């Protein structure tokens, strides 16, 4: 893998203005710009039908973009008038249902991608060790468990030393326990192999676990590319905020440069805010607020036990519903409460449902 060190200077994948439309009215992917760096795991996350799998297939070369340019490993593989076939792109693909060749045993599946002449190559043995399949090489795919099939598909894609590994929701067919175990295995293997990876999923937990960076796709567009923490904590749009976790937005007016007036009381900002802003909202998640049970105009709407915590929904005076989470089961349905902001956490400010800035709250 020595030859890859020099590659670290430029992005392994570079999409510029990539679009794919099947007819004038259906655009699966719209004007996507995306770069993936060497050794990085980028997760394409979004609801079903958002175009994430299509984008992956465009990068693999299974479909041809309608516009834009695409380069893989520094080689221009797709632009108007030029199209490099998938077999010449050096991409490794792991499918949702693995697509192991059912007529070949595990060993034959894994070595499918290398030439006959160097069957005894070092990399092959290393990868087989890495995925722990050395004892199963003579098994047929239908004799493998879900996890073993997964690892076989992974090994098969890794063996030819691809420039980039592409995963199309490979865990969605597994049951919950196995999924968690295998995603850990996959991450371990990819990091050890220093593989540059694009991983498509609709599961946000999976995304946050695996990703170095997450790209959120919505309606054919990429809305935000950032680290998992940034995506969760500072979602750039209302859509992302709500997709990542239950979230609500509460309207805020600027009283002065240190004070926001909201339905849940005044919020005192430590850093000044530009007083020219209008139509502001603040993002409220279950841990952003505190409840005061003594008196109040808000009402507890529902109580849900979630194992590690309780999840409450609270109806504000205006009718808006927000979530509150707590370790304690102290509230009852229909109980009146008052809501105040949790000043231990920063507050995230939005304008017209787009992220503006974050600020710390003073306790005063």
């Amino acid at each position, binding site marked *: 893998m020595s030859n890859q060190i020099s590659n670290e200077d430029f992005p392994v994948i570079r999409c510029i203005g990539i679009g794919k439309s*099947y007819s004038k009215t259906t655009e699966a992917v719209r004007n996507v710009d995306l770069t993936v760096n060497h050794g990085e795991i980028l997760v394409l996350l979004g609801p079903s039908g958002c175009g994430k*799998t299509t984008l992956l*297939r465009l990068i*693999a*070369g*299974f*479909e*041809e973009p309608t516009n834009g340019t695409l380069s893989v490993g520094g080689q221009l593989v797709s632009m108007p008038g030029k199209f490099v*076939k*998938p*077999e*010449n*792109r*050096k*991409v*490794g*693909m792991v*499918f*949702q*249902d693995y*697509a192991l*060749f*059912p*007529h070949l045993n595990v060993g034959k599946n894994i070595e*499918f*991608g290398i030439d006959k002449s160097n069957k005894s190559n070092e990399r092959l043995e290393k990868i087989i060790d890495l995925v722990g399949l050395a004892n199963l090489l003579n098994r047929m795919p239908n004799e493998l468990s879900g996890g073993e099939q997964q690892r076989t598909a992974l090994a*098969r*894609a890794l063996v*030819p030393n*691809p420039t980039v590994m*592409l995963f199309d929701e490979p865990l969605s067919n597994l049951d919950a326990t196995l999924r968690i175990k295998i995603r850990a295995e996959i991450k371990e293997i990819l990091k050890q192999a220093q593989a540059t990876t694009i991983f498509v999923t609709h599961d946000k937990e999976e995304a946050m676990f695996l990703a170095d960076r997450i790209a959120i796709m919505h309606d054919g567009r990429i809305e935000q590319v950032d680290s998992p923490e940034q995506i969760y904590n500072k979602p750039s749009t209302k859509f992302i905020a709500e997709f990542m976790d239950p979230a609500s937005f509460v309207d805020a007016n600027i009283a002065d440069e240190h004070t926001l007036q909201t339905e849940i009381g005044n919020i005192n900002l430590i850093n000044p805010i530009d007083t020219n802003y209008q139509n502001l909202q603040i993002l409220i998640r279950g841990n952003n607020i505190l409840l005061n049970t003594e008196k109040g105009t808000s009402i507890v709407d529902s109580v849900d036990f979630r194992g590690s915590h309780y999840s409450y929904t609270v109806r504000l005076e205006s009718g808006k519903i927000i979530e509150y989470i707590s370790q304690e089961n102290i509230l009852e349905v229909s109980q009146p409460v008052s809501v105040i902001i949790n000043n231990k956490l920063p507050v995230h400010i939005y304008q017209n449902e787009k992220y503006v800035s974050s600020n710390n709250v003073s306790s005063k």
Partner: protein
Amino acid sequence: MYKSSQPILQIMSLIVLLLIAVPLVYVAINLISSPNKFIEYITDQKTLFLAWNTIILSFTVTIASICISVPLAILTIRSNLPLKRLFRVLLCLPLVFPSYIYGFLFIILFGPKGVVYNIFKQIGIQQVPDLYGFWGAFACLTLLSFPYIFISVSSSLIKLDYSYEEVSSSLGKSFWYTYGKVIIPLLKPSIIVGAVLVTLYVVSDFGAVSLLQYKSFSAVIYNQYQTIQRGAAASTSSILILIGLLSIWFYRPDSANTDLYRSSATVSRNNKLIDLSYLKWIITFFIILLVFISVIMPISVLIYWGYNYTINYDDFFKISSIYNSLYSSLIGSIATVVFAIPIALLITKHKSYFSKIIEKISYIGFVLPGIVVALSVVYFGINFAMPIYQTIILLSIGYIILFIPVAIGIIKPILLQINPKLEESAKSLGASNFKIWKNINLPSMMPGLTGAFAIVFILIMKELPATLILSPLNFNTLATSVWTHATEANFGMAAVYSGILLLLTGLPMFILLNKGIRK
């Protein structure tokens, strides 16, 4: 669970089995009564020659059919060929022709002084290869039977997920490598299923080989029978029955349906079709040529000769042949379906070693040539059932043996789909056995029964050798009329009967076929 009805079913199945086993008894009696004669006969040079002829014909036709149909299936499903849906339908059309009709149309077209001969002569080519013998039979049967493989492979390929191709190409493999190492191996089971059908078709074919004067088993047995060489005919038949019996043990209709691969469950994506670029038009031309030779030319000749004949001599036509065809098909198909019911019930609802054997034996008709079944039934009639000899009853027994596997094959999957809970819940509501049968079992079996009836009806109407041998005296059906006139080279008259027969069987068969392909 259902044990109450089991003994009745077993007894009914045994009775049916005795009928179906007539060919086996026939062989056994032949072997036991004069074993020396049999051994002498099968080691005879002439027999070996016949065996060689039959093997070489079925082998070459099967190979040629595979070579034609597998690429055609791939092209009409996975490529950007224009009109591929239409081609997929047209390429199945030869199946509607019975081989004896196709045979004589082939002679009109390609025979000495035939249509093609005259065209060639006009452009100055005198040397036209001789149609009679191997090459004629080979060409005729290949065009007639390649759709079996085409249909079988197509229906597999339609279900085959594109991800195998995509994985292979992402691993750096070319189109040819991918097809050679992945797709074709995955299609192998369906190729084999189709190839078995083609081989059986060729081995049991009687009409085309006889008309084209190729000496294979079926043609020769009929000759021996006609010339009252009963012993020789019996020995030749015995060989075929023994071969058929062996092949039953290898034929597993159930395993034929289990595909090796996972079929595409996910939403079909916009998968890349094979880009034929400039080859597209050359391939289109060859497919049109194939359709032209295999379907359009025979049909045109049929219409032309039939029409000409009708305006000139229509008073020779015997309308009774239509009645007779409909009558014998009706009786035969009802009998076949009724006899198939107990066996189908037994093998789906009471799985046991006994039912497995019954299932195997019921396939006999599938692997035996019609002529052999007919001879054994004649023997049975003459020796044990003289009162029904040369009656519609004996003819129906022949049909039952021949077509009961088809009927069982259609009824069985429908029975398997019926939820056993239905019957149990009816019982829990206190319904009597009779009521359960009348209100639940029979109605839910009905689609299977009518489907089986329709297909067996068509098959019987097209059937030739058993009808020829087992019919009552002076009982002319459409099939036997075509045959009689074709063998006397009275092609015009044969064309008239063929036209009617094709209208009655071809159209419904085509509709059923299309349903099958779409599924």
